[in-house]
């Protein structure tokens, strides 16, 4: 059972080990699958759907779908790209994103993904322009829910890495949002030193580290230097395999 298998991604044969997701197999092989809710070091949850691929003809989320021997995966086709564009557009239109005044601009994964997918005009969808609260109660951290894309990375980071459970989803449907474990963030045990509050975790400009804003000048920001996904694509043949936590929690990130 423990033998590695082969799967095909856009015609290219790559190796996968049993139990590995399509995403992890692709990462190890240097094939980039666009993603927003999934990030190395956390349990995959499969919610943004940007990593949608076709596996043997069925659309699935690469970050949660286990690789099967001989599986044929389509990642970089026009059909898939259009799905991803629609999803990224939905995320833009769901919240309130004003990139030029946003602290995350240039290191924001949503913005970078839009560039990578070559989304230019936004003529298709209506803006929902929700009214969402900003929680600036904490001395070191601010939460600007207007930019939250509900990726749940902060939830998993706080729960599984920090062991704290500062965040959780509340509400349902279009009213779903990130809640904190008290009346407001200041009343929780959140700390600026939590992994959940690090720049790696929140992909957009929702979790803001106070007094650290705009630390990189335009031109030197993370995605000014290289487009999102380049790090994966330029990986060497024998790099360190991807880090994943023990699946002590359910595969959907719930206990």
């Amino acid at each position: 059972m423990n033998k590695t298998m082969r799967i095909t991604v856009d015609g290219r044969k790559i190796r996968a080990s049993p139990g590995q997701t399509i995403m992890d197999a692709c990462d190890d092989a240097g094939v980039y699958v666009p993603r927003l809710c999934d990030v190395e070091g956390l349990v995959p949850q499969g919610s943004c759907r940007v990593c949608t691929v076709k596996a043997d003809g069925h659309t699935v989320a690469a970050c949660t779908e286990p690789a099967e021997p001989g599986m044929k995966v389509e990642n970089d086709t026009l059909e898939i790209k259009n799905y991803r564009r629609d999803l990224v557009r939905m995320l833009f239109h769901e919240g309130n994103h004003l990139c030029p005044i946003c602290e995350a601009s240039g290191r924001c994964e949503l913005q970078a993904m839009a560039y990578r997918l070559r989304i230019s005009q936004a003529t298709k969808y209506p803006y929902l322009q929700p009214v969402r609260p900003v929680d600036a109660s904490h001395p070191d951290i601010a939460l600007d829910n207007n930019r939250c894309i509900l990726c749940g990375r902060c939830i998993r980071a706080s729960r599984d890495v920090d062991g704290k459970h500062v965040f959780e989803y509340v509400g349902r449907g279009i009213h779903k949002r990130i809640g904190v474990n008290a009346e407001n963030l200041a009343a929780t045990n959140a700390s600026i030193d939590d992994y959940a509050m690090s720049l790696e975790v929140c992909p957009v400009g929702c979790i803001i580290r106070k007094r650290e804003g705009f630390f990189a000048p335009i031109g030197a920001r993370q995605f000014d230097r290289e487009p999102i996904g380049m790090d994966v694509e330029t990986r060497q043949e024998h790099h360190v395999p991807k880090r994943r936590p023990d699946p002590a929690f359910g595969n959907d990130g719930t206990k």
Partner: protein
Amino acid sequence: MIDILWAVQDKLGCIDGEAMSLIAEKTGTYRVEVEGVVSFYAFFSSVRKGKIVIRLCDDIVDRHAGVFAVAKSFENTLGIKLGETTPDHWFSLEYTPCIGMCDQAPAALVNDVVVTNLTPAKVKGIVRTLKKTRDPRALVTKTGDGNNGHRLIAAMVKNNIRHTGPVLFDKSPAEAGLKQALTLSPGGVLELVVDSRLRGRGGAGFPTGKKWRYAAAAQAALRYVICNADEGEPGTFKDRVLLTERAQLLIEGMTIAAYAVGAAEGILYLRAEYRYLKAYLEHILARRRSRGLLGDNIMGKAGFHFDIRIQMGAGAYICGEESSLISSCEGKRGEPKNRPPFPVQSGYLGLPTVVNNVETFCCVPPLIARGPKWFTSIGTPHSSGTKLLSVSGDCTRPGVYELPFGVSVQDVLDKAGAKDPAAVLIGGASGDMIGRPEFQRRICFEDLPTAGAITTFSSHRNVLEIANYYMDFFIDESCGYCTPCRVGNVFMKQGLEKIMQGLGEAGDLDYLRELGKTIIATSRCGLGHTSPNPILSSMKSFPLVYSALLNAHPNEFQAGFNIQSALDEARVIAKRRSLIYDVSYGDEE
């Protein structure tokens, strides 16, 4: 957890921040987790509700039956608007999706008490009674037929059983199926179920025998059998009738399933709207325990132990999806789980779990008693047996009909006395809307599958208004886990509304088709896979209705110009000057 929340909600009329903290402390969870669960379910509230909550079903069927006038009347009599609570904290008034009383609409829930066939004229009397007695049970002056008159149900609900068939209303003696099953080995029972080609009655039509075999084969110390009595699909009410009249048969079926797969524990997941049946079902379970039909060594079979508990839902359509239902039983937000693993491998608490619909379990005892040959002789080659249909809408004989699979839509409409049917929705909100040319199609898994809902609409109904209502339903009921369903459905609805307002253009139909395709392809569970159906299937069946509403533009340019200028204005208001939006760079393939 859900039970605790129900107890608190019932006592305080809300589960506020303080209560959440306390519950978290007592259960060793986090306050925000409790908040996550409370805010997920429609029947829980963090702000204080009245002691008497009136929930009016605002489904399209009830709208056609005049629920808006009833709502107005309630507003006027109570002096509050929908969504509000009276200052004395006695009354709250709100809308709720289908409560499974479509055959006696407009209907409402007053706390747990069902009130049917409402009219504006009845409202004053209802409010007067409530104010006088402070007890919703006082509203039931005459109980319905059959077990609705049982002292533990005492509901005004009518069964409306219009046609009984050979399976669900089979006259085999009680427990014949279970008795027969216990003479066989569990493997022998599995074989009979496989041979009968029984398929799930809850919608997806998965072969029941296959499902049970997977669960039986999974390595585990404990296995679960769960009955899905969430019946949330708008227009479906057949499980309500089965729970009322065939509860013994249902439990017998679950017991046979437990024997076949080797489960020792079972759960009956009952939707919040059917809470009025809970006491009666508890009573049936207790009676079966005392008769040795549940508990240890059932029917004297040494080593066969099985018991069932009832789990109440709390108002969430998505909890009918089997993995969400399991999440809900585990006391969590009712969100679907990732698959694989499937519930039969790792379900409730990580144990192999069989989830079946009420009707599926009810098919099992007669099938075992009479054998697979008999069962497959009814219906069609790929859909053996009968189907219990819930027919409602514009017809003179709404109610449930047990008919063999393969029956044509036209036949059903004739039996139900459909009035001038122009559009029929097969399978509720997530099903297909068909028009007259398709009425000869047959109800079966080979052609038109349905979990049971047949909703008829006469020619003076507005197809777009119907589709629009069901989009609203999906927006409200989406769990919000994944992007396409959470956000995409809102865009679908807005696109449809644009057409309804007469602002649509030819390109809008393509827009809806493409958006619908993305939602279907990328959603995570069955809700998103079907949510664009009301619009997509009505576009397909009624293209002329849609095109009649579109504006003809002399040329493409003008259409494009209009959209652009509309957007420009929005951009100025929103002060959006983003590179991504305003500068076109890169070309779209």
